[in-house]
């Protein structure tokens, strides 16, 4: 099968230099794109059924189509690549950023041309030092070669690209918080509407895409929408960078057809569960997704199928819960993360998540009380969609609400026996 996104990636080795990348077919899509009217590229991406790879799965072409037309608003407009990959369990963007930085940059230039923005940023999480070093080198090479800057390849198109390296805060992955961070403000989310597409960075139209989404663009331009759709095993176009982590034999990330089943990912690519451990549950797409169970192994990992099974594909990087790890302890660890990373801007999240964390800590340590589970369920409702400023708290309660459903007996036993039986 074809692996367009990772064909140049050899983990453990230096990524291709610009010259090597060009020799491998790099920057063909930019030349092709610059000869096309920008709106034709938007139409092509729409036809490809590419859905955003950041977690929400919003159709990329449709999002691009919502960028206000040139002339209807004053310049500049902004394009931001959200490489603040900080969701526990997610490490797939790192593979692309470290492994083939030129591909990301070419994707950014073509995308920026398609929506006609002249300023772009890569918002990179602080801890990706290796990716930062490699991206900076690749950006410098691209400027030198005339792929970035004024009048790219003799066209009338200009693009300035900068890296913003963050300082460590999960909320920056939320796009309005990210925009506040780029403006040098405290990175709390903004009220929506207005959405960033209308009013984002410095009050200008701002498009935010995930690195994996952007990496797909050169290949769609080179090979067309039909080719892209044929890469997939489902209706959504393309391949997907999937990952498996936890107690499996070979944790890692791989590029596979969109719609590969959970079982194939864990067994064939992750090497199966480690000896002596059995699969008990799966969080399919990062810490903010509902648990699935071994009975869901045949579910294809695409946005719609995982949603139908009661969870979200999210980032597509799954973490397994094994039968020798306490599910209460597991969920407690997730909520430690979310309560620590809550930005404190809105009350339900700031107050509710530490409360959840404390209840779970008490249950795990034998101090649970009979009303605790209904109190937790109440939190799942009150921190759910519509009650908070952004998606952090609703995401935080997803694994909790499904754990209460699927592992209820474990919670009850902790409370009844006043101890964690795994310890």
């Amino acid at each position, binding site marked *: 099968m074809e692996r367009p996104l990772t064909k140049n990636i050899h983990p453990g080795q230096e990524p291709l230099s610009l010259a090597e990348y060009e020799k491998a077919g790099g920057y063909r899509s930019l030349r092709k794109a610059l000869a096309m009217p920008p709106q034709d590229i938007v139409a092509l991406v729409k036809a490809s059924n590419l859905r955003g790879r950041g977690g929400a799965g919003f159709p990329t072409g449709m999002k691009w189509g919502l960028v206000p037309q040139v002339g209807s608003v004053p310049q500049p407009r902004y394009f931001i690549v959200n490489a603040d990959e*900080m969701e526990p*369990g997610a490490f797939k963007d790192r593979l692309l950023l470290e492994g083939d930085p030129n591909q990301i940059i070419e994707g950014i230039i073509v995308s920026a041309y398609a929506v006609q923005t002249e300023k772009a940023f890569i918002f990179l999480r602080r801890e990706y030092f290796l990716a930062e070093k490699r991206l900076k080198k690749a950006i410098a090479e691209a400027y030198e070669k005339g792929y970035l800057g004024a009048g790219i390849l003799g066209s009338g198109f200009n693009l300035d690209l900068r890296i913003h*390296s963050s300082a460590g805060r999960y909320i920056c992955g939320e796009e309005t918080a990210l925009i506040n961070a780029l403006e040098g403000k405290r990175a709390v989310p903004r009220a929506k509407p207005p959405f960033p597409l209308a009013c984002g960075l410095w009050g200008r139209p701002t498009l935010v895409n995930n690195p994996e989404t952007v990496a797909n663009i050169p290949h769609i331009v080179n090979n067309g929408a039909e080719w892209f759709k044929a890469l997939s095993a489902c209706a959504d176009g393309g391949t997907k960078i999937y990952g498996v982590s936890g107690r499996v034999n070979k944790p890692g990330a791989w590029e596979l057809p969109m719609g590969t089943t959970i079982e194939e990912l864990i067994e064939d690519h992750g090497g199966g569960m480690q000896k002596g451990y059995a699969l008990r549950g799966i969080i399919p797409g990062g810490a903010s997704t509902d648990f699935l169970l071994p009975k869901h192994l045949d579910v294809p990992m695409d946005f719609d199928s995982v949603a139908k099974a009661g969870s979200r594909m999210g980032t597509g990087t799954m973490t397994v819960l094994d039968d020798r790890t306490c599910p209460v302890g597991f969920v407690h660890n997730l909520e430690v993360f979310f309560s620590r990373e809550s930005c404190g801007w809105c009350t339900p999240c700031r107050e509710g998540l530490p409360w959840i964390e404390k209840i779970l800590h008490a249950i795990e340590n034998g101090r649970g009380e009979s009303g605790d589970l209904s109190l937790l369920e109440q939190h799942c409702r009150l921190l759910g969609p519509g009650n908070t400023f952004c998606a952090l708290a609703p995401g935080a309660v997803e694994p909790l609400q499904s754990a209460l459903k699927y592992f209820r007996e474990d919670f009850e036993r902790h409370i009844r026996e006043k101890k964690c039986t795994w310890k």
Partner: protein
Amino acid sequence: MLTEEEKREITAELAHCEHKSAASIEALKVIQKRRGWVSDASIRDIAFLLDMTPAELDAVATFFNFIYRKPVGRHVIAVCDSIVCWSLGYDQLRELLQKSLGIGLGETTQDDRFTLLPASCLGACDRAPAMLVDEDLHGPVTPEMIDGILEKYR
């Protein structure tokens, strides 16, 4: 007082910014790289350069996990305590580090060599349990590797 060199480095960053405040994180990092941490006096000095009030800048500085508003050691160890590392041996790794260094989380060794901090997911779930020492990612870290890793940082 910021040194001329520090001012130059921050001013160079301003050339790329629509508004001076956009350089706040970068400016804080410039000072932290040179001085190890960001003091109250530095907050005032940087804020002046960026046309921000000290309170505005401190609201940014205190928001981020890796802007240090207290002195840290020459090397900072950030141990990932999120779900995959937790499942695969974070507790043991933390205990061994604490024993080896003789300090708890959030503390600095007496010789100012190491500061030990807990960290949210490092994006290295395929290499759990993982930790960063300064800018170097280590993982999977087994108990017998710990002393060898620490040896590298004097």
